[in-house]
């Protein structure tokens, strides 16, 4: 397999790496950079658990090749909380019981955070639509949706 040199920023830190042409961004993050917060449950784009941000936009990292991330900026779940302070979405997930086994949680949060940036005042239907690409087998989604709606409220309060 041919190797390629790439450089990318992950959670604000610059990395220069040699990667195989067929390596996915998901595997790069988990295996080479040790960022195991990003989860894998299908490796074919069905579950959304591997969602990270590429230049601030959510992508399923199992569908992105590492070489495609060359020159881009990646944010993973590990890059959200600063100095131990949770983001409003993370905080609301904790409070609302939106976490059970936690395996879907990183993907859910990455999607929810990005969505609330685009749509700070969503309806319940819009939240459901936005999270529709991330699967969770434990929670029945109810408390996740409540957490996202509540986080939106919190963030609106903070920005006024």
């Amino acid at each position: 397999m041919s190797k390629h040199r790439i450089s990318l920023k992950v959670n604000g830190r610059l990395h220069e790496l040699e990667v195989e042409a067929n390596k996915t961004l998901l595997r790069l993050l988990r295996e080479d950079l040790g960022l195991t917060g990003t989860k894998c449950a299908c490796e074919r784009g069905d579950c959304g658990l591997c969602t990270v941000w590429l230049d601030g936009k959510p992508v399923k990292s199992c569908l992105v090749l590492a070489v495609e991330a060359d020159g881009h900026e990646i944010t993973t779940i590990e890059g959200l909380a600063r100095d131990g302070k949770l983001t409003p979405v993370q905080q609301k997930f904790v409070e609302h019981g939106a976490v059970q086994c936690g395996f879907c949680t990183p993907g859910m949060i990455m999607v929810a955070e990005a969505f609330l940036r685009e749509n700070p005042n969503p309806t319940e239907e819009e939240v459901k639509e936005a999270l529709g690409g991330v699967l969770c087998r434990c929670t029945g989604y109810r408390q996740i949706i409540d957490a996202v709606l509540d986080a939106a409220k919190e963030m609106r309060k903070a920005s006024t």
Partner: protein
Amino acid sequence: MPEYSYVGKEVPRLDAVEKVTGAALYTADLKFQGLLYARLLKSPYAHAKIVRIDTSKAERLPGVHAVLTGEEIPYRFGIYMSDKYMLAYKKTRYVGEPVVAVAAESEELAEEAAELIEVEYEELPAVFDPREALKEGAPLVHEGLDEYLHAPFIFPKAGTNIANHFKLRKGDVEKGFKEADVIVENEFTQPMVQNVQMEPHVSIGQWHPNGRIDVWTSAQSPFAVRYLLSVGLGVPLHRITVRVPFLGGGFGGKAGLHWEPLVVLLSRKAGGRPVKLLMTREEEFNTAAVRQGMYARIKTGVKRDGRITAEEILYIWDSGAYADYAVNIARAAGYSCTGPYDVPNVKCDSLTVYTNHPYGTAYRGFGHVEFHWATERQMDLVAREIGMDPLEFRLKNAALPGKVTPTGEVLADDCGRVDQCLKAVAEELGWGKPREKRTENGKLQGIGIAALWKAPAMPSYTSSSAIVKLNEDGTVLLSLGLTEMGQGTETAFAQMVAQELKIPLEKVNVVRERNTDTAPYSWQTVASRGTFMDGNAVLRAVDDLKRKIKETASDLLGYPPESIAIADGYAFVAREPDKRVSLAQIATCGVLPDGRGVRGPLLGYGYYTAEGLTFLDPETGQGRPALMWTFGAQGAEVEVDPETGDLRILKVATALDLGKALNPLLVKGQIYGGVVQGLGTTVMEEFIFDEKGRLLNNNLTDYKIFRTQDIPDKFVPILIENPQRNAPYGARGIGEHPTIGIAAAVANAIYDATGVDFFDLPITRERLWKGLKGVKK
């Protein structure tokens, strides 16, 4: 002094922050020196003799460290029925069964090696329908059934495909049917489905050259894994250590033993390097365990006044190729067979049957989701036949305290109340009130109800234990054998410990990893038994710790232990609270004024063993199988589009008599999640096989589970609290129960809306449309 009342409060889970920050480590996240990766070569045939395997090319591939075939590891494993080989032995029994395993330096290499292996098969006639498998002359899935070890309460029939025949005989059904005014008989089915935990099965095994074995695994029950490994491999138990880090969902599918022996055996062959097997999603469907399919036939005799006089029940379980767990599912469904009703005369046969499908295992509800589909549909159908309201009919026959269960147990006065659950749900649905069935835009609306019950399905003699350790800073560390797979028991237990010791919740920590070397024993994390059994163990451990704290404090304060109280981080003389010592001060030992140390580091230990349970009579099923019953009821309000067959779930109400909600936030989470899993089974989930037994929908594109957009518009959890005296704070288990009544409640509601009856799950949009249009299936 603060209150320290935590039990019953909506406390966020203890591990939530680790999980929302991505810091929580699951088995697949762990790093190992010299790790090898395993891949599997799987059977393309449902039933085939293995004629020849040539692994030479794979073995020559650089970077390949071990290639294993079934011939080399003829060990059988299992918890209730030791029938499971790690690699197909002499023949394959389902499509997707592992035939050869490879361990190599990378996954890709292992995959490449697997592709170089040549296997010659001789196809054998296969059997897929469990009813066919029961017939004389059907292909035998296990010829050697009589040689298999099994639990004493399992009854296989050698020379047939019957892995277990559970029989229940209560009263006299002949007489009961004679007394009946009306007899109603129906058949119901449910296909195989999968647990679909988001975390696929993953195990890492290392068989060290000195004979020690280390396992890290996504298992619900580390002690069961250790025990079953030891028995299956013939290795002394003390040489095995099993560790379970964070677990990404289980729902029964990670109970007992899975692929742990295989990685361990690969490691032995690879000279002791650690080997990891991480199932792909496709393998989760094709190769890993699934929920067995079910066929049910129920004949009910009833008086015109609504009293059920007799019931004859047949449950046939499609356990697939192996029945390790399915045998006990047939038993559990068998002894609970009527649902939560008082039926004087019952005959039930519940049969676990081998076929050439993927193999069955536990899945949230343990047979109860499946059989309640049949019994709670039947309740509606019988009520209709005698012209009685289905709610009234259920209430009339409800298994109330004092009534007798199918196994002859007289329900205790504190057993919980199904009638209260039914009434609460009915009220929520507006039962009996006039309703408009047709909406303005031509949709059809209806409501349906179902009752449910379930006791922990387990051997009669399981036990649990817990340890609480007082730290030098006055905090407490709780150590459990029960695992945390998302259900939240750890948090509920920490609440109990904090409340009992009257210390802030922040001062209670729970050991995260489960390690069989250091954790106290717990049988398994299954059956909704944790809250009750391990909860009782935790309370006893706290009592033990308190006793020891008081002893040390007594030595230091010069008052008898009985006069000492504990609160706020201190042990003090109850009547003179300023005579006190802090818990931190006495954690390692007490120090007398002259400098002498007394007593020592403080540790509380407690255990709980299931009380009063017995084996059931092999011929009649009579005896005591249930540690406790959790009763409940569920109701659905649905809307059907008569043109398209679209179904919208407007509301699902779930009432459970859980005795005490230790943490309502977590209880609600269990209810929402359980309801949605139950709905998946009801309307969309199903294994679809071709005529050769090949699974056609082995991925999450073709096998859909509920997404955010699919959930009910409204969930109504109703927590009914009739405490159980021997339970911690009165609390019963509810982990599985919210999945159990959903399917029937929805189908009953669909009938109410449309007048169309369903007997087979799932009620997909297509089936619903066909039903509406009167198209035969």
